[in-house]
């Protein structure tokens, strides 16, 4: 696996898979949106407002997943000092922050009509807001040093400390009283939501995941190009 992470090899295989990833992303996001807006049924309690779920839930899932990628990249970078791991973590972070922002805003837009409030300081909402600030803090810290290696190391340590927030987000709806509903998809005993809603949700979530993978590869390639540009400038 590490041989795939050799920068020259990475440039080769990522160039080969990128067109397929981009194509699959476009197809899945288009299909997911059509299913979410036209095919999925309105909820018997929430009516058409339930369609916010197809944006909110995939964004929420990506918010945590991308943080796990940032933390994993940080761990690999700290332990094995692999240069691509730092780059992966750093290029994933803004994408994770974007997903978290979508999650927060769409959740707020869902909360107002269903709960009667845009925001409550309960465990789930607050822990996701903390996640958003962890992303911003990580990005700020990485860029706060004159020496990029020190910035990367400081950021990696922050990213690893912040991992404690992930189980807090996941289990917040079980551990504390909250307006937010408990898990209805990834739970023991299987999902509790109807198949007609689960399928569009699944396709949308897959689309969000591939969107992330595609853009992460593009951004990592960009970083490696920037490194070559710097090296050529120094040599000149």
């Amino acid at each position, binding site marked *: 696996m590490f041989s795939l992470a050799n920068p020259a090899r990475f440039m080769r295989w990522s160039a080969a898979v990128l067109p397929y990833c981009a194509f699959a992303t476009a197809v899945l996001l288009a299909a997911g*949106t059509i299913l979410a*807006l036209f095919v999925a049924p*309105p909820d018997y309690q929430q*009516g*058409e*407002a339930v*369609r*916010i779920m197809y*944006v*909110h839930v995939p*964004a929420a899932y990506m918010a945590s997943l991308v943080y796990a990628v940032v933390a994993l990249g940080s761990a690999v970078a700290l332990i094995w000092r692999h240069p691509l791991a730092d780059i992966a973590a750093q290029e994933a972070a*803004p*994408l994770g922050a*974007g*997903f978290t*922002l*979508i999650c927060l*805003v*769409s959740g707020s*837009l*869902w909360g*107002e*009509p269903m709960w009667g409030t845009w925001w409550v300081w309960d465990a789930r909402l607050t822990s996701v807001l903390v996640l958003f600030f962890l992303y911003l803090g990580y990005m700020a810290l990485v860029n706060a040093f004159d020496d990029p290696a020190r910035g990367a190391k400081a950021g990696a340590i922050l990213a690893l400390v912040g991992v404690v927030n992930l189980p807090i987000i996941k289990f917040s709806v079980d551990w504390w009283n909250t307006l937010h509903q408990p898990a209805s998809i990834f739970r023991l005993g299987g999902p509790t939501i109807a198949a007609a809603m689960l399928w569009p949700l699944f396709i949308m979530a897959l689309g969000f995941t591939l*969107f992330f993978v595609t*853009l992460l590869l*593009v*951004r990592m*390639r*960009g970083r490696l*190009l*920037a490194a*070559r*540009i710097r090296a*050529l*400038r120094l040599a*000149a």
Partner: protein
Amino acid sequence: MSGVDHFLAMGGYAVFVWPAYGVALVVMAGLAIHGVAAYRRRRRELARLEREETR
């Protein structure tokens, strides 16, 4: 109400549903455009430097 109006009204939840999709579109399109633009800019820059190198 026509079919399109009915669809756009989202059962009275239009002001919540459309901004939710809107923010996802704006954020994700923004990230995608920014990422691809930065990549292309660097590729052009690198090509220019490599041309100068060989001269």
